[in-house]
């Protein structure tokens, strides 16, 4: 409603210009209709390509699990698809959230200082640095992840150096380990963390930091008491934009891990494309969606209060 009211207000303001040769009646009708007309293209698009497929997905998850692509699926309202799928793949769910969670923490540790530096300290290099953050996105996701396969390979320089430094054993490796998957996730989704944080920190009022400093706050205190709390909305947006796609990702686990590192995305991928078990794939998809939504909800409730500090 508030969006409609806002759109209506803006349109109303514009159409008050007296030079429009329209009668007051038709002007007010336009004013009333305009918000709906503006919503129409996007609404239509979302209905066709999001709402309808979502309903279809839920329907598919309730199909007869004994059907097949060749014989067709019958709608049998098989709710038992859910507990069965969950039971079979609960470890994959756990692993997905663990990897995505670890990657989110890493991304905050890497992304916050980066976003802060670009927003507050970069000066005229700001735009160039922002382009650098986004630049990897110009390459395909797949290619980027394959590049990491090379970087982390057993005879690559990273592993060589780590073995030299005795961080890794002589036969230790990175590729095909959980570490590689988490690193891959961190790398691939980092811009989703940095950009909202940057947008927030860029608006940070330097005068507030001066005031904090004037009121006996050391730079560290000024950060924890002023900068950090004020950047919380950006941090929340960044972690959500990062965590949600990371939790559903399957490319990183596929290319940088082994089946032991497979995440729920890999299971869904194989259910639809290899095993052709559509009801199970759909049930897992719905479960993933619900689980992520629930986590987001809890997270927002917590982050919305000051207790999170």
């Amino acid at each position, binding site marked *: 409603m508030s969006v409609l009211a806002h759109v209506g207000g803006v349109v109303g303001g514009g159409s008050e210009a007296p030079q429009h040769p329209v009668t007051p009646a038709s002007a007010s009708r336009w004013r009333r209709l305009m918000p709906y007309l503006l919503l129409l293209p996007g609404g239509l698009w979302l209905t066709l390509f999001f709402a309808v497929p979502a309903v279809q997905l839920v329907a598919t998850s309730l199909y007869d699990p004994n059907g097949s692509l060749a014989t067709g699926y019958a709608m049998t309202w098989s709710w038992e698809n859910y507990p069965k799928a969950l039971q079979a793949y609960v470890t994959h769910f756990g692993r997905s959230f663990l990897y995505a969670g670890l990657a989110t923490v890493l991304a905050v540790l890497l992304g916050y200082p980066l976003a802060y530096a670009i927003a507050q300290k970069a000066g005229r290099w700001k735009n160039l640095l922002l382009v650098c953050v986004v630049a990897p996105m110009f390459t395909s996701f797949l290619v980027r992840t394959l590049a990491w396969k090379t970087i982390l390979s057993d005879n690559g320089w990273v592993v060589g150096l780590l073995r030299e430094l005795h961080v890794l054993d002589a036969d230790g490796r990175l590729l095909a380990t959980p570490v590689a998957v988490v690193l891959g996730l961190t790398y691939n989704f980092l811009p989703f963390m940095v950009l909202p944080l940057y947008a927030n920190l860029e608006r940070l009022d330097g005068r507030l930091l*001066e*005031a904090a*400093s*004037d*009121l006996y706050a050391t730079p560290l205190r000024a950060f924890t008491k*002023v900068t950090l709390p004020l950047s919380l909305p950006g941090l929340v947006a960044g972690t959500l934009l990062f965590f949600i796609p990371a939790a559903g990702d399957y490319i990183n686990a596929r290319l940088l891990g082994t089946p032991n590192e497979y995440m729920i995305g890999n299971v869904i991928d194989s259910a639809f494309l290899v095993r052709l078990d559509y009801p199970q794939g759909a049930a897992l998809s719905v479960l993933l969606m619900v689980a992520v939504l629930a986590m987001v909800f809890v997270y927002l409730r917590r982050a919305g209060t000051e207790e999170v500090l």
Partner: protein
Amino acid sequence: MSNAPAGDLCLANLTKRFGSFTAVDDLSLTIPQGSFFALLGASGCGKTTTLRMVAGLEEPTAGQVLLGDRDITRLRPYQRPVNTVFQSYALFPHLDIFENVAFGLRRRGVRDVAGQVRQMLSLVQLDGFERRRPAQLSGGQQQRVALARALINRPQVLLLDEPLGALDLKLRRQMQIELKRIQTEVGITFVHVTHDQEEAMTMADTVAVMNAGRIEQLGAPAEIYEFPASAFVANFLGQSNLLSAEVTGKSGEDVLVEAYGARFCVPASRARCMQGSVYLGVRPEKVRLAASSDEVPGGHQWVAGVVTDSSYLGVSTQYLVRTSWGIEMSVFAPNSQAGGPLPVGADVVVHWLPEHAFLLARERGKEESPAPARDRVDTAGVVS
């Protein structure tokens, strides 16, 4: 009040350059402890930069900031016993009023935060606003929170950077009186930066008029107003009629000058400059109007002219009088006088007492008005 040894705030040869621009130019002044000091100047004159150097938010290019015997020039802002009320208030939007005011106390680990905050909020008359957010307060209330947030720390010096600039006129007047009351009550040195001359004069014990990074004049408000040191001060602090003149000699205690062919005299004690090119200055409210030169009281000096403009201001009427030399003089005539307002075009005589005039140094060749001087001695003179 403060735990640290008290003392005067002393700026010694303070200079700040931004690239090739000199914002503050070799400024030296001493602000006595417990005084209400105003730095007055137009925007860009360096007054805010001076304040920020005292706060530690700007590092001086040269010079020192001393507090008593202590050199605080290189201390970080959070190490100085100095607090600031910022022009934009800079209240923390994520904290409520209580936490905003408590901020400084918490950083220093002071006990009894709650009691002090409540006491301070009642000093600025904001009891009961503890749990509000800054955005829920009016401009005047935010201003008082900013004041409370700084004052609660009992600084040795409180810096106020145009703190009333964002308030409407009536609230501003009210806050001026309020600030003065609080300053008297707490006895802390206040350094107030403003471009509003009336504000500076109302509140401060001592006013420093700044121009182009330097102090033009420093003194009590009445002192500066009655006897300005330069043409800049004469026109920045109130208005002045300045006539270009040349000193012609001395007669007893009086300095004789000639302006546009007419002769005037000014007591030597009212002359900043005794020779060469000068400005003969007189404040518009010290000037009287008469219908003809016959009505000019004894001892007054006069100039004949024509009323070209009149604006009714309530307590007074402001006239512009064009003298026969083509110079316009401004006259404030109190409306308490009998007789109606003078019409535009009326022939009048402008007159004043010599002891109300003052002489200021003038760079040779610099004239207030390019109008040529005509030799008509009968249009001006000294009534003896």
